[in-house]
């Protein structure tokens, strides 16, 4: 799978002057897109499509399907742009949350025989996590996220990564890790909280 080249990454940060996720320029583009401005939407597309595609690839593990998800997400962004409220979060967050939701939905719609894959997913996870950590080199913010993730205890990290990157439900994570579902839910919350605190401290 194409994990993206350096030039693609640069393309993704173009026009954003290396700013963080709260980039007000993107917010403006989305606000204009909500009013039917196709040019503004095209600008938003340029700025975010590589990141959306990267996330979709990571979750659905298939480039053709990831592209369908990406198309779906971008059209949905256009369709529901009016629901975006700049006061409540950045455009980038809004789009990526939608992208993750769609990617996960895609993975779950083809779940036949998935239980068998769970254990394989656990084995794969540590390796693929290392790959992610190596690949993160663009944004300081991302470096912070992954530095924090590596510092997290394995029992807290695995549920997060399996759910977020493999698209597993908490019940599937529980099965894969042979841990009670309630414990997994609790660890997911605790893990995210630790990451949040670590990110706040590191930024």
């Amino acid at each position: 799978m194409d994990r993206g080249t350096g030039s693609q990454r640069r393309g993704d940060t173009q026009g954003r002057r290396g700013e963080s996720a709260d980039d007000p320029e993107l917010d403006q583009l989305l606000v204009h897109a909500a009013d039917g401005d196709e040019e503004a939407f095209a600008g938003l597309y340029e700025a975010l499509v590589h990141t959306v595609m990267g996330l979709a690839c990571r979750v659905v593990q298939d480039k053709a399907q990831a592209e369908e998800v990406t198309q779906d997400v971008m059209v949905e962004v256009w369709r529901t742009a009016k629901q975006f409220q700049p006061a409540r979060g950045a455009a980038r967050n809004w789009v990526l949350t939608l992208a993750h939701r769609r990617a996960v939905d895609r993975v779950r719609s083809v779940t036949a025989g998935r239980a068998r894959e769970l254990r394989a997913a656990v084995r794969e996870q540590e390796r693929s996590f290392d790959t992610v950590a190596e690949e993160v080199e663009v944004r300081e913010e991302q470096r912070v996220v992954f530095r924090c993730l590596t510092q997290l205890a394995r029992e807290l990290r695995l549920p997060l990564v399996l759910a977020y990157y493999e698209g597993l439900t908490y019940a599937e994570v529980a099965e894969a890790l042979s841990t009670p579902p309630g414990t997994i839910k609790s660890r997911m919350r605790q893990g995210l909280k630790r990451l949040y605190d670590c990110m706040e401290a590191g930024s």
Partner: protein
Amino acid sequence: MNLTDDPHFDVGAYVLHALPADEEAAFENHLASCIPCRREVERLSKVTVGLGAAETSAPSADLRRRVLDQIATVRQVQSDAFASRRRRRGQRGVKLALAASVAAAVALGGVAWWQSSEAETAREQSAQDRAEYRQLADVLTAPDATISTHELARGGTASVVASRAQGRSAFIGSGLPPLTDDRVYQLWYAESGRYRPAGLLSTAGGREARVLDGPLGGATGVCVTVEPAGGSRQPTTHPLGVISVPA
């Protein structure tokens, strides 16, 4: 209440999109009335977005053209339809308001609360709430909408407006007795003897209107039960009423 029944514990799984549809719907119901939970969701979402932005990948060259072609044919959702109705009073707004009022009036036996309370509350509604109102109006004004009304066992009237074409239905309750803090009205779709959670009502009782969570599917009825706060996965009490939905 044991640890896993506490809806607050779902917040991490929710942010990770790791809850199955029924539990996600139940948690969102809880979220609607839990301000600290919403704050926690906002905070933790920053973490997941950080995880999500980790990698980039280039789509094929013609994706941009396909997307731009497609949006030219896609109608944008106007989420402010309700909020702007009072100030616009344009033809479309009035028409929608009238249609919604008529449907609600039929369902409730002729009341104007819908229009007035909706206009009052719209001012303070978040975009998400407005989207819910819009969904409600969509169901109430569906050309194939059917209305069924039922008296509930412990008082109050329940109406279900269903649109098979849209695959959605709305619940409109009036005169529901208020419940104590630790109990909640829960709605269920009944299908082939099984119950699917379809959302919670506020504990205040009185009048309630909402679109049911999840698809109508092949459901033949909507049930109302009283459940512990946060809702249940399956009914734990005898239904107060079963409102049948025409096929």
